[in-house]
């Protein structure tokens, strides 16, 4: 059967896809892409794993609980960054105002990255969940 070929290719490809996804997330502020697109790519790597092996090996790497935890953590991180800006006296998500010991432009850059990472975590869990939930007999 062709499964050996598929499995080997899948195994070799998955780390590269994930690396590319992380690259897209981290380069969000300076190139096309960002948290959402990168998150989808990393999530798609889990789907590839589930397709080339089986559901349980994908489950073993990112179980239902881990995905839910990542999903919520990403969203809460996003809200948290917004609320920190609020506490620092700015508008919601006005992260340029957060008092850190560096230039405002740098602060903004860091927080754009952080927001991207938060969205990325959220989306990668969500993209993997969408597929795995539909494929296995989970409840909605």
């Amino acid at each position, binding site marked *: 059967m062709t499964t050996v070929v598929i499995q080997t290719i899948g195994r070799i490809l998955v780390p590269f896809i994930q690396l590319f996804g992380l690259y897209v997330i981290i380069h969000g502020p300076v190139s096309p892409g960002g948290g959402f697109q990168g998150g989808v790519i990393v999530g798609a790597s889990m789907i590839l794993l589930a397709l080339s092996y089986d559901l349980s090996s994908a489950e073993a790497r990112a179980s239902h*609980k881990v995905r*839910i*935890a990542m*999903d*919520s*953590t990403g*969203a*809460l991180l996003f*809200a948290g960054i*917004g*609320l920190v800006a*609020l506490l620092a*006296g*700015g*508008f*919601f*998500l*006005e*992260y*340029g*105002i957060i008092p850190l010991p560096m230039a405002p432009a740098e602060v903004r850059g860091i927080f754009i990255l952080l927001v991207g990472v938060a969205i990325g975590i959220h989306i990668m869990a969500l993209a993997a969940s969408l597929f795995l939930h539909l494929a296995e007999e989970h*409840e*909605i």
Partner: protein
Amino acid sequence: MDHAPILVVIAPFVGAYLIPLLGLWKEKLCYPVATVAALLSAFFSFWLTASVLELGTIRYYVGGWEPPWGIELVVDPLSAFMCLTISLVSLFAVIYSKNYIGRELPGGKTTSYYTLILLLIGGMLGAVVTGDLFNLFVLTEIFSVAAYALVCIGRKRGSLIASYRYLILASIGTSLILLGTGYLYVVTGTLNMADLAARLPALYDSWVVIGAMAFLVVGFGIKTALFPLHTWLPDAHSIAPAPISVILSALVIKVGAYSIIRVLFSIFGVEFITGPIPIASVLTWVAAVGILMGSLFAISQTDIKRMLAYSSVAHIGYVVMGVGLAMEIGMTGGILHIFNHALAKGCLFFCAGAVIYQTGIRSIDDFRGLGSKMPVTMAAFTLAAASMVGIPPTAGFMSKLYLALGTLEAGAWVFLIVILVGSFLTAVFYLRVVNLIYFGESRVKSQESRVGVGDSRLQTPDSRLFREVPLTMLIPIIILALGCTLFGIFVFIPLSVVEPAVKLLLGN
């Protein structure tokens, strides 16, 4: 700086994402977290309303970027009024869920139930505070998806199909909304509501603008279940679990009505909708047909929740009729009816849920003699039904009075007759139930529709079955029923928010 506009939206969303995390650890924590989140947003909306009444319209720039680039939240009295209605009724729905959900939901669904209900609340609150047409679309979509999921969460027979039909029809609606938004963007180059309002008058004779308005009105009309577009409503509203029926019937369709008001009055402006393209009077006629047809359909129902759902079709007609009159008194009545109908319909669905919870009765005929078995619930039901009919001291009377005066102000006798006939029809089907409750003879022993739940103790009817529901369910019922009366007598309380809202919308 006043942060209430964003906090009122963020509180339910943070709650919604905390719940799955905590639910992994302890499922029991979901309910308190959901209650606290709903409570917080209710608190913030009171704060918001107070500051709006004091300072006038609040503009809030998310991220500190001003309108053309950033997202703007605009809270005027109408938004504050909707916030207050949404957060109060949904707070009661969350409180009510505690006991009800245990019996209605299959195991392991508690976490997703509370997550979805908070997403639903957060989406609705976001939709009413945003000042950006595109954000309105996104948030409409967020709460709609949560609503589709909640309709079928109870796994009753037919709930999947009801949810699917709701989804397909409502997504036609949302796509039309997006299309209308796109049209407006193409001709004006902005999506901010205030900017749109400023740029549109120059383009009034453009066909693109007229098309955009048609798309937006039809799209939101589907969400609102405006009469010919209401076909998804009866199934979805009657099959959902009771707290969800409350939110759907009392709030979700009202947010659609709010969006219609926002689009017609804040974006297109009164001159346009009453002038060359008389969309306002079209809406009034549609609403009038809706009132009569909704009531007629409701009379022929035998299932209590279906009857209440059809009654919502009729009552959204009153709201839209008031809005379509586009005159001060009529609009006051219409907008006031959003609040009064939310109280009354919320209370009625809660009562129906309480009866189903205790006895499994869904058929109206089996309500015979419940008055002596569940006196508090049935008293609340009667009060709320009186408010729906519009019997004098209740809240429903006040909004219908304003509506009737509004039709006289507009000189449209036809609509006055429609309101009177509609109230008469409403009385027919509500008083039939009330009559059965108090004067019908109990025939508990010989009926079969009680089985529903399949519980073993239902086989042997005893007095244990017919007592009042637990306090978490009873308190929301009582508060809403009292609200129906008190806000009729002290009508100046809601009016203090509605009147400035109407003045602002009509631009004087």
